[in-house]
């Protein structure tokens, strides 16, 4: 656990233990009192309170900050607890600005500045790159909805879409299970701390997700579940996906919360149509009446997700923070090697050269062949591999780079 992690934890502790609410934080941010410091800990707050006059904070905020500073023991105590659990359970702490912090949240407000993850952290970036689909529904679903959940979850995960759900009983459980069965990546957003198994019946699923997927929470480690947390958890589920699939929703179900969050976050909402005589599906049908999309086939959903991913890709590429760091090949060295001793180039290096060749403009395979001076048979097999990896694509007879190729 490094310094940044501790700072993030302390910040979380202040948020959780003291009475400082979102109004205070908002004021601090709007008035730029926080400045360069994204995650103020006690030290930062102390500084702020000393020069509070400068920021023209309201009286309420000032008192609250002072109260918080007075209860610093409590904060420290909480911090210790969090750190201990996080260490024990190998929980990763991700703050805004980290390369793992969901890019998909960048245009949303009200997202937690710090999230806690248990399991495979790279799934968070997978959502940005391959898209995410959230699947939510009743805890006591009908067989039809369960079947559809399994089907859609499997098909979407086969297309590398990350399946996001809430690890509740019923639909949530099925969505996670089917995704894991299909070898896909799944993400569970839990209401309590991400080490807290809720509901307890899902202990087996929790272990599977920790091993092959990821469990995410905005709550600090060890936080027990109370029912007030559910709506805010629901907002994270929809926020972490490009399309929200409502598999079954009763008239007053929590699933509808997720749907309305999704709509507010401008996510596509798909609703599985079901019988009008089925009480459990009235909520979903009403959503359909209100203009949600009908869930008929995977392709429509996938196309919608892809579209979102494309938008993101363009910006991701532009900002270039995700992939810039992974550059392992120096293209100039490779070019030099191509001139001097092409026989020493390895397959992966040839692939880099091919990608570089088409980075400026799309090229026909014959052109690539001539430019690189590589036998067509070898080039063909490399291109198929690159295509299968999704790094390049065939566009009207010429090859272009996809996001993954950049």
């Amino acid at each position, binding site marked *: 656990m490094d310094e940044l992690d501790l700072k993030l934890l302390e910040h979380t502790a202040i948020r959780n233990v003291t009475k400082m609410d979102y109004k205070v934080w908002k004021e601090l941010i709007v008035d730029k009192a926080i400045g360069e410091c994204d995650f103020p800990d006690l030290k930062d707050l102390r500084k702020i309170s000393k020069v509070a006059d400068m920021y023209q904070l309201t009286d309420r905020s000032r008192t609250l900050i002072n109260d918080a500073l007075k209860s610093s023991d409590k904060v420290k105590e909480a911090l210790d607890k969090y750190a201990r659990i996080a260490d024990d359970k190998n929980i990763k702490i991700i703050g805004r600005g980290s390369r793992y912090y969901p890019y998909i949240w960048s245009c949303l407000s009200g997202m937690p500045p710090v999230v806690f993850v248990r399991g495979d952290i790279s799934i968070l970036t997978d959502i940005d790159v391959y898209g995410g689909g959230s699947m939510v529904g009743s805890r006591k679903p009908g067989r039809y909805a369960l079947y559809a959940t399994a089907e859609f979850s499997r098909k979407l995960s*086969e297309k590398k879409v990350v399946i996001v759900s809430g690890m509740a009983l019923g639909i949530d459980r099925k969505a996670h299970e089917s995704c894991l069965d299909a070898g896909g990546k799944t993400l569970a957003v839990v209401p309590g701390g991400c080490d807290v198994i809720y509901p307890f019946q899902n202990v087996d699923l929790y272990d599977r997700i920790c091993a092959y997927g990821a469990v995410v929470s905005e709550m600090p480690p060890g936080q027990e579940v109370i029912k007030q947390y559910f709506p805010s958890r629901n907002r994270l589920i929809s926020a972490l996906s490009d399309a929200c699939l409502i598999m079954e929703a009763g008239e007053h179900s929590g699933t509808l919360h997720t749907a309305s969050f999704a709509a507010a976050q401008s996510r596509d909402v798909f609703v599985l149509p079901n019988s009008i005589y089925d009480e459990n599906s009235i909520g979903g049908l009403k959503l359909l009446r209100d203009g949600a999309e009908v869930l008929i086939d995977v392709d429509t959903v996938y196309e919608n997700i*892809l579209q979102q991913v*494309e938008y993101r890709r363009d910006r991701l590429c532009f900002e270039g923070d995700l992939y810039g760091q992974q550059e392992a090949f120096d293209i100039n060295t490779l070019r030099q090697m191509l001139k001097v001793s092409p026989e020493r180039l390895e397959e992966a290096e040839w692939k880099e050269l091919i990608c570089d060749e088409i980075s400026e403009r799309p090229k*026909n*395979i*014959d052109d690539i*062949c*001539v430019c690189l001076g590589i036998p*067509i*048979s*070898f080039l*063909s*097999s*490399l*291109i*198929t*591999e690159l*295509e*299968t990896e*999704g790094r390049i*694509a*065939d*566009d*009207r*007879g*010429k090859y*272009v780079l996809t996001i993954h190729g950049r």
Partner: protein
Amino acid sequence: MASKVKIVKVYTSFMDGMTPVNAEVEVSITPGLPSFDVIGLCDSSIKESRGRIQPALISSGYQMPKGHITASISPSYIKKSGTGFDLPIAVGMLIASGQLSVKKGSFIYASGEIKLDGTIKGTPSAALRLRLCKDEYDYVFIPSEEEDAARCAGLTAMPIGSLTMLRETFEESSYNPMRFTLDDIGDDEEYLPDFSAVKGQEKAIRALLIAAAGFHNILLLGSPGCGKTMAGKILAGIMPPLNGSEIGDVYSVMEAAGLKDDPEEGLILSDRRPFRYIYPGMSRGRILGIPSKLMPGEFALANHGVLFADEIFEYKREVLEALRIPLEDHVVRMSKDGRNFAFPASFVFVAAGNPCKCGMLYEEGRRCTCTPTIIHNYMNKLSGPIKDRLDLVAEMRSISGKSMAESASSENKRMNEEMRSLVKSAWQMQKERFNDSIFNGTCLNADAELLRAGSEVVNYAAEISEAAGFSARGFNRILRVGRTIADIAGREDMCKADVAEAGIYRKGDFINGRVGFKAS
């Protein structure tokens, strides 16, 4: 007073549909009023033979025998037709009447049509019929016109041009049969097309090589004039020449298709691989054959060679869809009079077309004026099942004048030879695998074990198919193309790179009808 009836047997053969059948012509002359009967389910073309035989005998210096002449052709339960029975009947009559003296008990084979002046003409489907002719005959007479057919059959026979010649042969006892073989059919290099048309189009050349090496169907997409037709001819050129039995196959189909009377094409005995060209205006009958006449079409004519379908996107749908089954089975089936006939049609199917309406999609710069929808609609004129049968898709584009000048060098010849030897060695490997002339592209069943693809290779092929959305057939086809690539390289076991290379020639977007829209 009962006189001893003299019966003479002469052997011949006829075509029952597409099957050659050996026949026995028995001629008897009994005293009585002059009459002439031919029996044995004969149609009028045989019955008319009397009208031809009588003047021919007289004009060749023989006499029409007096008496009651009966010619019985057996097997007599099969319906027969054709004028090939003229010569055997005439020979039988001459022997029976004692005008020709033959050692008793000799086997005579004869066939041919007789003209009024005694000249002997060939009859259709000789190549197939003569294959039946065995060496046990003492005398084998064939019309001079059928010499080529005899060469296909590897027959020992004496070609005769007229009844006069026949007479001389017997009078001077100068029966001197010739052994017909295909040995002297040489390689004529002249017809090999010029490689310059596809120079610089590495992918297309490679695809052509693979197609030739494994008999894979191939689609060439390119702008007008970029050398697609030439590419098809090159394909036929880089294949090794026909072997003996294949020459016979090709020749007999050409015969059956009536090319003999075709002034343009003619009937040539050659070891060239057939290169047949079909275009959108052709009727279904021309392409697949006419069942009522049992006439083979271009499909059967292209057997062992190349069938080039130009402007594949412009065919009428019904014609194109009718090609599906023959393309898959490599056989054209016909039925006539309740009987089924099959013409083998194992060839490399080369389809060519423009990639879009204006044809310029693959050209450099932004010369294509088609919208994505137009491109999409254009490509989808070809139905999914047809696209699925195309193992290789290669894009072509016109090459610049500079490279054209460069390519008109002597290097082309060397390239031809090099490619031909590659194809030859690949064929050798396939021969060991499948026996006979079956190839990776045409064999009906090819499992991973036979193709020698390890589980790693199969898994990789599955991965590619998954990513590109191929059908089960598509998966199998890339394995086959991969196998051919391995054959070209001379590898016993397939490796991952083979399948990977095969993947580039199979376009998922194209097959699934999503061309024109941005690849995602």
